[in-house]
């Protein structure tokens, strides 16, 4: 008891580093720089103030010389921000007492964390707003009539999205038929032959394809298929297949690379030929990963509009003719959203709701698969 009291009354033995000059209030420095810019920095640090004022004057001179333009205005804003940061740091460095300094830094850390958390969660707001609004507007539209009838002629009420619904399903199904085999086999090649030149260049091309803007894909297919054969659902499917493939390829490749090599060895040692080892052992063991890649790619293309703009076009009638134009959900949403008729807007809301539900369900399904079907290796 006695000793504890004695210890607590003894002055601290720590050495404090003493800054020459007055201590500045961080808050004051921050506010002054915020309001007065480079001039406000003078409060916190003379040297900083001089530097920032000079830079600012240079900026002003350029503006006077070349006239106000976007580039220089952006520079002015950046200079202002740098002033604030400078003032803050300069003032922070003048805090003398070690304990108070540590307390300040701790508070700074907590403030930063709150700021980060705020920014991170604010991002969810737009999504929630969009989802809620689409559900609100769209749910009202959806009923059996809506799903089974084609849109009414312009200006008339009623009608539905049957043509777009069926069209989307047909187009996506056709894309999958093309993209899935090519994608899986390509992915197998890349994972089985990682060092070869072909694998390097092919992988490069996969990355390139993944980055090609969707409208460019539409243009290309226009020249390859629509020009010779006319607008058709097939052309739309091919365009979407080109967008599906990179996703399937990469996820197949990554899934297979994660499999242990002992699996392949075990099969080969039993005298199983290579193609059967891949098709009957490797691919089934990686099935969960490959399937989730496929479903994700489907979820991605089911909402793509741009490639369909000049390929599958649209069609006001319910049609299953793949050699002719076919409507699809995203294309219909685009056409009707930008139309002047309110009835068509209503249809677009309903279609958006259906499309959104599809995409959400596919994503949720993927998550469930990867959790449940992942074979214990």
């Amino acid at each position, binding site marked *: 008891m006695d000793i504890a009291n004695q210890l607590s009354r003894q002055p601290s033995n720590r050495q404090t580093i003493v800054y020459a000059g007055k201590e500045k209030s961080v808050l004051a420095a921050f506010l002054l720089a915020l309001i007065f810019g480079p001039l406000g920095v003078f409060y916190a640090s003379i040297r900083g103030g001089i530097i920032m004022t000079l830079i600012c004057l240079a900026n002003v001179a350029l503006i006077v010389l070349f006239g106000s333009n976007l580039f220089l205005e952006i520079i002015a804003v950046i200079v202002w921000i740098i002033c604030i940061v400078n003032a803050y740091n300069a003032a922070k460095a003048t805090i003398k007492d070690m304990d108070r300094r540590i307390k300040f830094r701790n508070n700074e850390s907590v403030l930063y964390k709150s700021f*980060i958390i705020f920014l991170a969660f604010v991002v969810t707001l737009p999504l929630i707003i969009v989802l809620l609004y689409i559900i609100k507007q769209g749910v009202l539209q959806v009923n059996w009539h809506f799903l089974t009838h084609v849109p009414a002629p312009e200006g008339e009420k009623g009608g539905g999205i049957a043509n777009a619904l069926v069209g989307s399903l047909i187009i996506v199904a056709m894309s999958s038929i093309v993209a899935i085999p090519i994608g899986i086999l*390509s992915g197998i090649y890349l994972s089985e032959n990682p060092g070869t030149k072909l694998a390097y260049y092919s992988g490069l091309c996969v990355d390139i394809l993944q980055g090609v803007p969707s409208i460019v894909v539409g243009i290309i297919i226009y020249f390859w298929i629509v020009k010779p054969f006319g607008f058709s659902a097939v052309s739309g499917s091919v365009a979407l297949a080109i967008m599906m493939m990179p996703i399937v390829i990469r996820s197949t490749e990554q899934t297979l690379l994660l499999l242990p090599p002992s699996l392949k060895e075990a099969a080969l040692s039993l005298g199983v030929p290579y193609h059967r080892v891949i098709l009957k052992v490797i691919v089934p063991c990686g099935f969960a990963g490959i399937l989730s890649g496929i479903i994700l790619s489907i979820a991605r293309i089911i909402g793509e509009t741009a490639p369909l703009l000049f390929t599958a076009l649209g069609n006001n009638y319910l049609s299953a003719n793949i050699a002719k134009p076919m409507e699809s959900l*995203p294309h219909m949403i685009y056409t009707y959203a930008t139309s002047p008729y309110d009835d068509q807007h209503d249809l677009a809301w309903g279609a958006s709701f259906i499309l959104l539900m599809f995409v959400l369900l596919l994503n949720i399904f993927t998550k469930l698969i990867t959790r449940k079907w992942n074979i214990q290796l």
Partner: protein
Amino acid sequence: MLKNKRLDLSYSQMKWETIFRRILVIMSIIMLILVAGIFITLVVQSMPSIKTLGIGYLWGKVWDPVNNVYGAYPFLVGTLLTSFTALIISVPFSYAISIYLGEYNPKGWLSNLLKNTIELIAAVPSIIYGFWALFILVPVVRTFEIKIGVAPYGVGVCSASLVLAVMIIPYAASLGTSLIRMVPSPLKEGAYALGATRFEVIRRVVLPYTRSGLFAGILLSLGRALGETMAVTVLIGNTSAIAHTFKEVFFGPGNTMASVIANEFQEADHTMYFSALIELGLVLFFVTVIINLIGKRIITKYTNN
């Protein structure tokens, strides 16, 4: 001879092996063919425009198809303005999400919730963002424009940038999260042991370590923004004239390379018009591909370290 009569297989098995290997090779070659084909088609189809208009096309300020005058400058400005504004707006948010999910809260139900929400943002089709924004965001922007005294179009670069910003957040955020999680603990522990606060460790250890990777994430977001078509087309207002002051350009309607192709492709009736549009596609292709490749190359360097 084999003791085990059951395994009397014919040697056709070997034939299938070679066939299978050949098929795998062919599938990979298809990728090469596709990319080469895309490139060649774009170049060939924009040849008329390249030959006639030359490189001046890129800074021609007038786009007047009726009088056969083509200049890509308005669209370059529109594209760069929307993409970079979207990028600048999105960066603080992607950065905050990466730090939160990578450093402050890597595991647990809340972090999973946030991660799934971000993935959902990326999953929503762009046309739905465009459609929603057209009816909900644009009126809000319109009222704002009235308040600050510009012509209240509502549509334009401003709305398009806002929506684009939301759409590209997930790309940099998910990449940033993985990178920040990969920062080795000994590095951070060394800093903590010297008495640094959490903020200081993040600022002086984690972020410098992941700097180039985060930059790659930003490049990927940029690539996505540049190539985005539908949401922008719906929101950008479709004007090919270029306004005079920055305020007018930003708050007024415009066009991006992708949106002008989407809007005018079907109307192009003569070769020059057509090939001028395709040339835009070629430029778009080049720019997005280069940015994406640089980004991916930085990332592979990172993950191999």
